[in-house]
């Protein structure tokens, strides 16, 4: 009896909270430090979508329209901050969802708290494989039956496949792998090695080298690649250190292609590498070229709202924008601000969501611990190869551009 009373009380309490007039959405990410271009672009892209939704009166939830209220948290790309923020968000009982995280280590430190409380999170734009594979079945431990964590980013599995494919297409046989010593870099290296095996062992890895966050002198690693006769460098790291690699490649006269994860499009890579960055290749989910009216509108709105000429990380901005649209569609379908209902709606989105990257048709399905793709939105066809050219990222292959234009029509 007592228990029932308590439950009734709690229920009353929570409905009262849910009856509030806003949908609470947390946005987390590194808004300062080396990862900041990704974090702030994601945040600003997401905010752009939110302000458009709010300007139109909000989302129809059941019978009334509700606006989105943003809760912002800077994780500084630090794992310990990520864990604290995860705990804090998990303790809010009226939170509808979380969008964000750039760094794989932060995701691993923070998401377990959200999963424990069943709070719906869309990881965006962290791409490290471990962010999702941590929930998948493993030999010694089965994954959770139910998962409230989704991802909206081209995960490293796809990206590594494209990087290896690019090297093989260029008829290269000897490559060096260089990566940073973080969770992201190490899991990227494993993905690359795995993909080389999967694609028929056509590439011979002649050197595997690593560097630390903050390192500026990459001569040792590059000379090893050079003396081993590498024909390309496959790389996994973040902006400032990647720029140091490009600059040192120029210094020691190592003129071979640099191909790596999407982070090679970060402004702090492109700007700090300058002309040494020209020709660098990386998978991209979005390229800042107004090839369709929808994309043009998004780019112009971003430039105008944040008074910039270039989006610091276009991929993050576009993904942040589309992630909010998908989240909003789930809220509308769930007719509720309850995070658990939103999760169920996300797993079975009925209506296609017209985003800036693509039109998302049923991006997620019910979680299956044997196949983490069920909670991954991006497939190979959503990703194109980008190339650095005079300070910005352009399509590396004209065919990709034409394909996207055609798709939009």
């Amino acid at each position, binding site marked *: 009896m007592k228990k029932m009373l308590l439950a009734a009380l709690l229920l009353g309490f929570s409905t009262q909270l849910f009856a509030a007039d806003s949908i609470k959405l947390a946005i987390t990410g590194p808004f*300062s*430090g*080396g990862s*900041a271009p990704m974090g702030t672009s994601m945040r600003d892209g997401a905010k752009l979508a939110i302000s458009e939704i709010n300007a139109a009166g909000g989302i129809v939830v059941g019978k009334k329209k509700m606006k989105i209220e943003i809760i912002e948290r800077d994780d*500084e790309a630090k794992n310990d901050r990520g864990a604290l923020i995860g705990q804090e968000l998990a303790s809010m009982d009226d939170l509808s969802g979380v969008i964000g995280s750039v760094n794989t280590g932060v995701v691993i430190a923070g998401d377990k708290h959200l999963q424990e409380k069943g709070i719906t999170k869309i990881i965006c734009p962290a791409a490290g494989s471990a962010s999702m594979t941590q929930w998948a079945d493993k030999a010694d431990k089965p994954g959770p039956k139910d998962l409230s964590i989704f991802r909206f980013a081209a995960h490293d599995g796809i990206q590594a496949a494209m990087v290896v494919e690019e090297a093989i297409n260029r008829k290269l046989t000897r490559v060096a792998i260089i990566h940073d*010593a973080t969770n992201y870099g190490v899991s990227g290296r494993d993905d690359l090695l795995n993909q080389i095996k999967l694609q028929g062992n056509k590439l011979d890895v002649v050197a595997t*080298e*690593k*560097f630390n966050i*903050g390192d*500026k*002198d990459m*001569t*040792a*690693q590059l*000379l*090893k690649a050079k*003396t081993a006769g590498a024909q390309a460098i496959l790389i996994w790291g973040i902006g*400032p250190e990647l720029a140091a690699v490009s*600059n040192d490649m*120029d*210094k*020691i*006269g190592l003129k071979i292609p640099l191909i790596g994860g999407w982070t090679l499009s970060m402004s*702090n890579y492109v*700007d*700090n590498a300058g002309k040494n960055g020209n020709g660098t290749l990386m998978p991209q989910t979005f390229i800042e070229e107004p090839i369709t009216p929808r994309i043009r509108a998004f780019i112009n709105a971003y430039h105008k709202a944040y008074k910039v000429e270039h989006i610091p990380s276009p991929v993050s901005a576009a993904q942040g924008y589309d992630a909010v649209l998908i989240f909003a569609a789930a809220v509308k379908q769930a007719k509720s601000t309850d995070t658990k209902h939103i999760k169920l709606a996300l797993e079975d989105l009925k209506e296609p969501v017209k985003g800036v990257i693509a039109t998302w048709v049923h991006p997620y399905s019910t979680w299956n611990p044997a196949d983490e793709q069920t909670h991954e939105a991006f497939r190979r066809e959503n990703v194109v190869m980008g190339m650095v050219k005079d300070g910005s990222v352009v399509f590396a292959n004209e065919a990709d551009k034409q394909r996207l234009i055609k798709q939009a029509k």
Partner: protein
Amino acid sequence: MDVILQMGVSGALMGLVYALIAYGFQLTFATSKSINFGQGELVMLSAFISLTLTNIGLPYWLMVPGGLLCGVLLGLVVERVAVRLALEQKSEGWILMTIIFGLFAFSAAENIWGRDDHPFPTPISSEPMHFFGISVTPVELSVAIGVLSVMGLIELFKRKTLWGKAFEAVAADRDAAELMGISAKRTIMLSYGLSGLVAAMAGILVSPITTVGPTMASALILKAFAVAVVAGLDSGFGVVLVGLFLGALESLASYYIGSGWREAPGLILLILALAMKPNGVFGKVSIRKV
């Protein structure tokens, strides 16, 4: 062979920056037997101030003296707020005080300039030049020239001018110097000012290579400290040799042992030096009269 040379030279040039910061430790240690544990933050603050000077439109040749002047002022501030009182009381309080000053400077920099790394513009080209099969950039060469010339000028100042001679006298024997009418207080201020100047020079020289950010000096300072201790805190130009050696050793270790082992040789060297030559390889054995 080319590889050894390339790695050695690249590393040694960075090693000169360690030497310059280590020299800053020496300057204050000579006069006051105290060192500024916030020296790294002085390097960082001066670099940020120089960057700001550049951003408001000062040309390079005006920005450098401006940055150096700020370095001197910062050095004097450290002496006034963190060191003087402790020395007057003959306590070791300056250790904690200079660390606190460093932490304060770090927070201030984060709040004023943010936590991001900024590129540092320089008119000196970073196009590599090739000598005997190795590549060196003019920026790296400017580091070498800058370090050696600033150290040379300060040594010249110490030997040839009246103020410099006062400096040497206080370093040799503070009490005797005071009896000769030399103000130890002023000399200590001078040494902190010079040490600030050296820190600012290090910041201006190294920033085009490392970029400017609040944490830019944290890795440098530990190595500079190792250089100062291994060479000896009163070794003068000894720091240059040890700096060159440590820089080259680091580079070669990361090539031959693996990039994860970069820092190891420096630390082993530090332990060996402390165990076998506690006054430093180039230090003078102190004779204490009882």
